[in-house]
């Protein structure tokens, strides 16, 4: 024996890839492969030791050690290795946690592979119970290899026990495979398949971002194991044997089924269409290799383009062909840097099993070493090592990429797709919901805490309590609550006398000024609804809005009125009619608007075609305004500028919020010619402390000295709000200012989702839009109206009190945009009446998924 020399060998491609991974993370147990075999039966430790010594002698991988010279790794097969069995008697520590803790520590312990690539121990856990722990470095083994070692060990132990002479112990050696692999890689045998892998992976630009998360380059990982159970596993096998699925072998078909589910899953949680998945090819291509212990597997990619109309079965059919290509090109030595870099998820379908040990019932467990390759977000292993008939799926989840909450959802989402596939393979792979929760869970219903109050009621209450507070300032004109209320009442009485009532719709075409505010209040006091039309609107559009909104009356002012030419409408010039209006009574009209009646119709520009009028009820307006009063802490001291177009949704805040808060509106008239520079005047005057504006407006702040500004509250809406802009605005102000990012389409009344900007939390490029306001719900749904998991892009749907009643004069668009709420059916009836519909928003994808605190 001693005249035999140790042999030196280079590393295979697979070994080199593992070696490189370990070099990047030298101090973590990336490649500890640990199995425990719980044996029920009496084990003789002396004979067990002898059997293991025979195992070492007959199996070269247990004698391999690794070294590195000038950066080049080598492996040496030693001729002899000393071994004495570590035996630990835990009989008196019948505490499972002690054993688990010991196993966990042992699993994580790094091995010095320049000395030994394995670590084994026999634990005695009861008079008739033993646990054989076998740990190997992945550089020399894979699952099939472990099964070979296990069976060999079992037969050696039996032969020791029965004292039978050893059979021929000339097992094929891993060294032979290593040499074979080198030959394959250095000759032209692999040319065609190498070309295939290069072609297959060369145009892959992006790796999927699961749940929107960019992969964190660290190894820490968490394993969550899912037991599919015998019934489900049996259903999978039955499916695999159906003619339309059946392939060469049941295992191959099952692999294709799991691959189809995995591709569907990754598509669903990343939105990506071209997806590469890594799958280990077992590579034991000859009968000899099938009996050889060692690292044979090579992880190679399968690449699939998910198509729009894909069902599970149509995807399965393409996966089948892709697998055939994969199989015919998977040769020893195929894995290269380019193929390794093509995927960030792995599906490992393990064929190894572990029967009884020496005739004793044995349970095999595969332990995870808490670390995975840092370039992988998710590694998924399907196996049935105990031949129980039930598949287990182990999900190794990159812990720094995914939160604990997301990690725990991963198996749920996968399983829901698997079950959907089993139930109906012909359905679209986008149809089944991923989330497990009952549909009603999403909707946390808040009971209405306060009864309905109209904005007019609130304004009149403020008039009663503080009649002499300033309500409005417009250039040199100052109106107290009392005088503003009187003027509004006079106009309202005038309108009422003209026959205006709760069913009437009145268009308001004004410059910004006190007349506009008075008119708004007057219209609402009569119970009618107003449609604001800004002074800068082209005549054609003004005419369109007036007729489309079915307004019966236009209130306007002398300079604007001349352009209007609609025959069937009353036109009232409030300036010209001033003397008659001034003769009307000052008293409140005491008309109680019902919550369902319209408050205003707002026309949005609409990117395509004609502007569309959004119908907003009294209740929707009140829901927003009174929520805003609480959320933004507005009060008697609040002073808002009215400086944005009266036709804009966001101006509703500046129009009503100060008046319901007992505060003040400072009205800034728009420039008659040229761009509207009212904001600059607002900033120069420095008379306001609250402001509602768009991110575009904020850009102007940077050029202004704000060191003496009184502004303490900013409500930003209407556009995407970049975090760096928010940050720079905070810096411009000397005092602490609160910045709120308010989101909402006109159809959901000004703002229905809001976040307060928080410099330390909001580190992503865009400030999140936040969470729904009172009595509003938001859902992010996919095309089949399934709720999408957190981080997955979907479309935003809104429901609640703030929802519009639909579009003026356009039933078909209303039917298209306002849909039946699929989540409402479990909610009790009173709520069903309040939340009748969801609206599909046109929100940009960029905002979706940003809903968080």
């Amino acid at each position: 024996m001693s005249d035999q020399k140790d042999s030196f060998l280079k590393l295979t491609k697979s070994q080199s890839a593992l070696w490189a991974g370990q070099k990047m993370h030298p101090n973590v147990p990336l490649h500890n492969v640990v199995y425990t075999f719980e044996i029920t039966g009496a084990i003789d430790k002396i004979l067990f030791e002898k059997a293991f010594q025979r195992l070492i002698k007959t199996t070269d991988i247990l004698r391999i050690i690794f070294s590195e010279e000038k950066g080049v790794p080598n492996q040496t097969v030693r001729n002899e290795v000393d071994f004495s069995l570590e035996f630990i008697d835990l009989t008196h520590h019948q505490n499972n946690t002690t054993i688990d803790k010991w196993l966990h520590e042992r699993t994580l312990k790094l091995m010095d592979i320049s000395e030994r690539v394995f670590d084994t121990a026999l634990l005695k856990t009861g008079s008739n119970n033993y646990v054989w722990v076998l740990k190997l470095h992945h550089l020399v083994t894979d699952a099939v290899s472990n099964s070979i070692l296990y069976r060999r060990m079992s037969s050696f132990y039996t032969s020791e026990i029965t004292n039978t002479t050893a059979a021929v112990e000339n097992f094929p050696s891993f060294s032979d495979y290593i040499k074979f692999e080198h030959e394959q890689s250095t000759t032209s045998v692999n040319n065609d398949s190498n070309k295939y892998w290069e072609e297959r992976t060369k145009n892959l630009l992006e790796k999927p971002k699961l749940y929107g998360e960019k992969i964190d380059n660290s190894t820490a990982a968490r394993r969550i194991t899912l037991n599919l159970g015998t019934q489900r596993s049996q259903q999978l096998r039955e499916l695999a044997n159906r003619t339309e699925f059946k392939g060469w072998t049941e295992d191959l078909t099952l692999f294709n089924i799991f691959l189809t589910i995995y591709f569907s899953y990754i598509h669903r949680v990343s939105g990506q269409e071209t997806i590469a998945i890594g799958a280990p090819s077992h590579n034991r291509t000859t009968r000899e290799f099938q009996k050889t212990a060692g690292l044979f597997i090579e992880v190679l990619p399968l690449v699939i383009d998910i198509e729009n109309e894909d069902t599970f079965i149509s995807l399965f059919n393409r996966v089948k062909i892709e697998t055939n290509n994969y199989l015919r090109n998977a040769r020893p030595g195929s894995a290269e840097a380019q193929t390794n870099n093509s995927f960030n998820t792995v599906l490992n379908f393990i064929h190894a099993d572990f029967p009884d040990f020496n005739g004793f019932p044995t349970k095999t467990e595969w332990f995870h070493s808490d670390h995975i390759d840092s370039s992988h977000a998710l590694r998924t292993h399907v196996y049935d090592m105990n031949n129980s008939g039930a598949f287990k799926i182990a999900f190794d989840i990159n812990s720094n990429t995914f939160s604990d909450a997301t990690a725990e959802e991963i198996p749920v989402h996968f399983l829901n797709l698997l079950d959907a596939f089993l139930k109906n393979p012909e359905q679209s792979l986008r149809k089944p919901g991923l989330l497990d929760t009952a549909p009603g869970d999403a909707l946390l219903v808040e009971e209405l805490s306060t009864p309905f109050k109209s904005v007019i009621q609130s304004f009149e209450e403020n008039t009663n309590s503080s009649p002499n507070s300033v309500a409005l300032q417009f250039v040199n004109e100052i109106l107290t609550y009392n005088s503003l209320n009187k003027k509004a009442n006079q106009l309202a009485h005038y309108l009422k006398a003209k026959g205006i009532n709760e069913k009437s719709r009145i268009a308001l075409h004004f410059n910004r000024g006190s007349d506009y505010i008075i008119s708004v209040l007057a219209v609402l006091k009569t119970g009618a609804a107003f449609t604001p039309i800004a002074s800068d609107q082209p005549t054609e559009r003004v005419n369109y809005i007036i007729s489309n909104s079915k307004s019966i009356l236009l209130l306007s002012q002398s300079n604007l009125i001349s352009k209007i030419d609609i025959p069937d409408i009353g036109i009232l010039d409030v300036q010209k009619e001033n003397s008659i209006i001034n003769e009307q009574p000052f008293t409140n009209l005491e008309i109680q608007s019902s919550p369902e009646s319209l408050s205003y119709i707002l026309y949005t520009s609409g990117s395509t075609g004609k502007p569309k009028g959004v119908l907003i009820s009294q209740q929707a307006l009140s829901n927003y305004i009174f929520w805003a009063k609480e959320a933004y802490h507005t009060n008697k001291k609040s002073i808002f500028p009215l400086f944005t177009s009266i036709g804009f949704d966001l101006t509703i805040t500046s129009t009503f919020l100060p008046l319901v808060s007992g505060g003040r509106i400072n009205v800034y008239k728009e420039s008659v010619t040229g761009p509207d520079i009212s904001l600059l005047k607002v900033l120069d005057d420095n008379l306001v402390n609250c402001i509602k504006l768009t991110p575009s407006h904020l850009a102007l702040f940077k050029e202004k000295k704000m060191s003496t500004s009184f502004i303490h509250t900013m409500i930003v809406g209407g556009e995407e709000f970049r975090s760096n802009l928010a940050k720079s605005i905070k810096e411009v102000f000397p005092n602490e200012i609160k910045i709120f990012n308010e989101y909402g389409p006109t159809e959901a009344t000004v703002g229905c989702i809001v976040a307060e900007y928080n410099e330390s939390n909001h580190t992503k490029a865009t400030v999140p839009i936040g969470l729904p306001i009172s009595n509003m719900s938001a859902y992010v749904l996919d095309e089949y109206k399934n709720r999408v998991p957190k981080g997955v892009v979907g479309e935003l749907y809104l429901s609640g009190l703030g929802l519009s009643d639909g579009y003026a004069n356009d039933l078909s668009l209303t039917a298209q945009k306002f849909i039946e709420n699929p989540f409402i059916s479990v909610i009790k009836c009173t709520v069903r009446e309040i939340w009748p519909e969801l609206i599909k928003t046109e929100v940009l994808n960029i905002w979706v998924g940003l809903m968080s605190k």
Partner: protein
Amino acid sequence: MKDKIVSYIKGNLATESVEDIDINEDLLGSGLVDSLGMVQLVLFIENEANIKVSPEEMTIENFTTVDHILKFIASKNKDQKQA
């Protein structure tokens, strides 16, 4: 061709040693050849019969027995001549 195929299966692919293989024996169902072995057989046949087997043709129908394989090769040869 039949002898070549049978001897290749016997010599290289069969998971257990066998005396002879009947041309109607179910290679896959009997577990004699596994899926990676089947791929080896495809590559062998491509070489020997000078045909190209597309991934779509790697089906159970074409490869379940030696007889099926021979018929498949014959049909491929016919196609090639026609083409």
